[in-house]
């Protein structure tokens, strides 16, 4: 029997909504599991992705760790896919892009309503925030894009079944949404 297709997934500056939407393929997951095996993803306990066929990236890039993870995925995945509005164009997190970073932090950790013990987190273990949130194609080469906030379960299904069948993936009009 041929080896299973290895798929890794991660969420960078995203809300995990795209992962939730992927789970909405419901019982089709069983069918997928026959040919697919998950590498790093929220359902495995793997910290670093190893050699994979497909990497699904949710979320844009907002901090140094996101850059690192994205580069690791690019290095290890044959096909890298931008999943959802944030990965494709920065999405709603990028709405902070014309607000000064210091102002953003102050609003969240100092001046925000209900903040107690106000201080801006500065632990050396925390990844540094970038000045702006970026879509992932600005950092590494991306092979496919699945738009949507989130892309529907049918988008994931159509894309993956096309790819697994060796077809060039195509989304029909009804499946292309930016919202």
């Amino acid at each position, binding site marked *: 029997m041929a080896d299973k297709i290895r798929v890794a997934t991660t969420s960078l500056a995203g809300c995990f909504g795209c992962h939730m939407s992927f789970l909405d393929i419901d019982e089709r997951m069983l069918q997928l599991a026959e040919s697919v095996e998950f590498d790093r993803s929220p359902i495995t306990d793997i910290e670093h992705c190893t050699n994979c066929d497909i990497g699904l990236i949710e979320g844009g890039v907002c901090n140094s760790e996101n850059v690192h993870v994205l580069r690791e995925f690019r290095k290890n995945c044959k096909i890298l896919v931008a999943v959802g*509005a944030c990965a494709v164009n920065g*999405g709603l997190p990028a709405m902070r892009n014309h607000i000064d970073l210091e102002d953003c932090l102050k609003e969240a950790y100092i001046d925000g309503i209900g903040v107690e013990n106000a201080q801006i987190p500065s632990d050396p273990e925390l990844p540094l925030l970038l000045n702006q949130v970026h879509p992932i194609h600005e950092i590494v080469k991306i092979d496919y894009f699945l738009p949507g906030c989130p892309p529907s379960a049918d988008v994931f299904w159509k894309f993956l079944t096309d790819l697994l069948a060796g077809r060039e993936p195509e989304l029909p009009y009804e499946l*292309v949404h930016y919202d």
Partner: protein
Amino acid sequence: MSKTITIDGKKIPFSEGQTIMEAATEAGVYIPHLCHNPDYEPHGSCKLCTVSVNGRNCTACTFPAMDGQEVISESRELEHDRQRITQMLFVEGNHFCPGCEKTGNCQLQAVAYHLNMLDNHFPHFFADREVDASHPDILIDHNRCIFCTLCVRASREKDGKNVFAISGRGINKHLIVNSASGKLGDSDIDVNDCAAHICPTGAILIKRQGYRIPIGQRIYDHKEINEVALEQEREGHGG
């Protein structure tokens, strides 16, 4: 004797003085467009309607139809160019569709869907643009303006008011409002003006109606823009 042009090999009659876009629309042939609206003087700014006429590229909305013209609209090259043009429009502004009231009803988005545009290709500008909410009934979100000048033309040609203009060039180009403060609230635009309703994107919005029609039940959630445009724009020509 009636005069004809051909578009993608199809013979199309036209009357003297018509543009290629007008002849095409009347014949039920859709050429993608954003700054063109049959009710207003053509402006030729978005370049989305670029077609090849006898081997040279020009904008169908401004180019006059002439007997015997060979027009190509649906070649792979032109479709690729149109996708790149649309991607440029997206990265030049700040288009976050999930947070936009116009989503599903937006012509920019619908053209992008029609062109099967799945990504924005270019690095994003993330330009600093303002929101003007000074008017009691109308809102301008400059993040979404594509400088089609339809509001400029509508205010001048239909409302007789001259509320809008485009100022500056290139990256500094912006939509300005004709009032002492530059704010919409101090201009003489009224919520019933054509200019308040013509915007193809979510740049000019009427307040307090945002989500009356739920997302998912809006125009382009169900119909492609070629169908919608031909339905609406052929009426204007009595076609």
